[in-house]
């Protein structure tokens, strides 16, 4: 097993490179992704190596980035669109919801909507407004789309390749605050299927589920809790839509307690969905209601106070305490 250590940013870069080497129909398109390599340098060097026809610097219009990727998909190309920041995906919302999500169906399967929309999402980098949002629920809600998120370099490396190979359109959410953290990457074998939830840490008292940047925060909370003899099982959802409920059900049946962590606000969120589904399926096992730890119901705040907006170790542990204390 050839493993190597790299950042998530590099893992994505390598994953994209490998996908482009494998399949000549794979294109990249986005704002500033060429010479600049993207504002996060995820596509660094790829235009130099694959040319301007395959790594396409886009005029500044997100609806057009996605809309032309649809046309390219119809022509048999696989385009990986880079949305520069989460808050700039909304101009493309119409194309995503009305076309990307529905054209396979509308054409009775004639069109393959093989395209990936990469979105650096969630906060934590001290950015100004519109650069720290968590729009995943908008897409999770939309039939016809799939939504995934990576939380480690290894996942990033493999999931981006799996997403590009997949025939359905995929919203690929990258936790930008983790881009520069390093981890082991296995260059030979993908660790999991693209749509698998994964238990990141076993535990017996409470199940805590999250995705993207939250996973590491939850793991930290689990460390702290362990010091107090509280055993947290940590699940990385990875696939936000569809949810891989199997491992989650198994866990909740074991622990009887559930906390879901996300940076998006509560209302009609992925967290609400996880709680609802698991409550329906594990009703008799649950010894307390499932609780969400989320961003507050406000526009993402100025980043000097973003740490108080985003779920942190304290808030997660507080929620854990609440579900633990429910019966006592």
């Amino acid at each position, binding site marked *: 097993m050839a493993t190597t250590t790299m950042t998530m940013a590099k893992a994505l870069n390598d994953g994209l490179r490998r996908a482009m080497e494998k399949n000549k129909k794979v294109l990249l398109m986005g704002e500033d992704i060429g010479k600049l390599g993207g504002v996060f340098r995820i596509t660094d060097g790829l235009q130099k190596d694959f040319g301007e026809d395959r790594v396409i610097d886009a*005029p500044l219009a997100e609806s*057009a980035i996605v809309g032309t990727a649809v046309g390219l998909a*119809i022509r048999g190309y696989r385009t990986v669109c880079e949305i520069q920041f989460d808050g700039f995906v909304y101009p493309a919302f119409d194309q995503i919801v009305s076309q990307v999500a529905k054209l396979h169906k509308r054409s009775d399967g004639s069109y393959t909507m093989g395209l990936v929309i990469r979105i650096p999402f969630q906060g934590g980098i001290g950015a100004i407004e519109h650069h720290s949002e968590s729009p995943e629920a908008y897409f999770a809600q939309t039939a016809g789309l799939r939504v995934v998120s990576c939380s480690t370099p290894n996942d990033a490396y493999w999931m981006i390749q799996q997403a590009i190979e997949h025939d359905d359109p995929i919203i690929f959410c990258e936790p930008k605050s983790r881009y520069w953290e390093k981890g082991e990457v296995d260059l030979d074998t993908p660790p999991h299927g693209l749509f698998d939830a994964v238990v990141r840490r076993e535990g017996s008292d409470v199940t805590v589920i999250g995705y993207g940047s939250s996973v590491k925060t939850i793991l930290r909370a689990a460390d702290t809790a362990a010091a107090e003899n509280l055993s947290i099982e940590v699940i990385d959802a990875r696939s936000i839509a569809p949810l891989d409920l199997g491992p989650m059900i198994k866990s909740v049946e074991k622990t009887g307690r559930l906390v879901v962590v996300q940076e998006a606000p509560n209302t009609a969120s992925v967290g609400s969905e996880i709680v609802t589904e698991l409550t329906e399926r594990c009703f008799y096992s649950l010894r307390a209601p499932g609780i969400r730890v989320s961003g507050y119901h406000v526009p993402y705040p100025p980043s000097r106070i973003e740490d108080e907006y985003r779920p942190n170790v304290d808030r997660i542990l507080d929620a854990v305490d609440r579900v633990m204390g429910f019966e006592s």
Partner: protein
Amino acid sequence: MIDEELVQLLTPEGERVSHPDYQSTLGGDEIFGFFRDMAIVRRLCNESTSLQRQGQLALWAPVQGQEAAQIGAGRALAPMDFTFPSYREHGIAWCRGVPPEDMLRIFRAVSNGGWDPQKYRHSVPTVVLGNQALHAVGYAMGVQRDGAEEAVMTFFGDGASSQGDVLESFVWAASFNAPVVFFCQNNQWGISTPSSLQSKVPLFRRARGFGFPGVRVDGNDVLAVHEVTKRALENARLGGGPTLIEAYTYRMGAHTTSDDPTRYRIDAEVEVWKHRDPIERVKSLLVHEYGFKTKDFDEVGDEADVMALKLREDVLAMGRPDPITMFDDVYAAPHPLIDEGRREMIELGISGGSR
């Protein structure tokens, strides 16, 4: 309609006029072919309208008045070209070989599409105004990357020309010099909205500001539309980049069968345009210049009747789809919520689950 900027080769009376840049080199048989197409499409439209009145269709979007625009353009296409229509391009679909009954599936509310777009190289209808213009540009960028000598054409209305997606598609087509022809049917109305609200100046001029040529053509003159479109498509195929064609025409009927145009437009306007009927003028040319006879036209009428009869039969035979088909082709790969939905539908007895 006396307009220097308007390319016209045939007057409303069916007389030829010369134009410095465009001339038609078509022979009588070819022109008769256009007549036939237009007559059949009109018949298809009338039959569909009556099917709708009889409760057999949920809706119909009439194309009457725009036959020359669509046949002139549709017949300029090469087989390998690809087209991205809006919802009113029955004439284009006809030229692409889409079976008439397939065109009606969406209007019988048994499908959201109706035909195999890859087979006919004609995309499924796009109902959200303007979305398809970007698809066309993207497809054209694919053509470029394949090094293919193919053109792409997309269709939208005067109303849709105000949508951001159409305007962004102009930016992109120019930036990438994409082999795409934008075909805007300015039929003067977007439901009740007059085209003057979308633009105070002729729409075709918009292209120039984006860096590519725009042409206004008499959309009721099949010969002019044909020449203008042929030239634009050839130019695109040879790497000359995009063109915007504004086909100046008129929506003779209602927006759709749900619409009541008497609420917003006056009869006199419709009357004026009746004299510019696209079929009459070419018929007149065929009679006077090429000596076609009543019999010849009657034969087309008969052919159209046969088509209409078959269309009616086909439509009436289109049963209600099994509800479980709503789960087909949502995803290309298995999906748990699709499986769950299918299972529920079978358990509830809503569907036998046969497929």
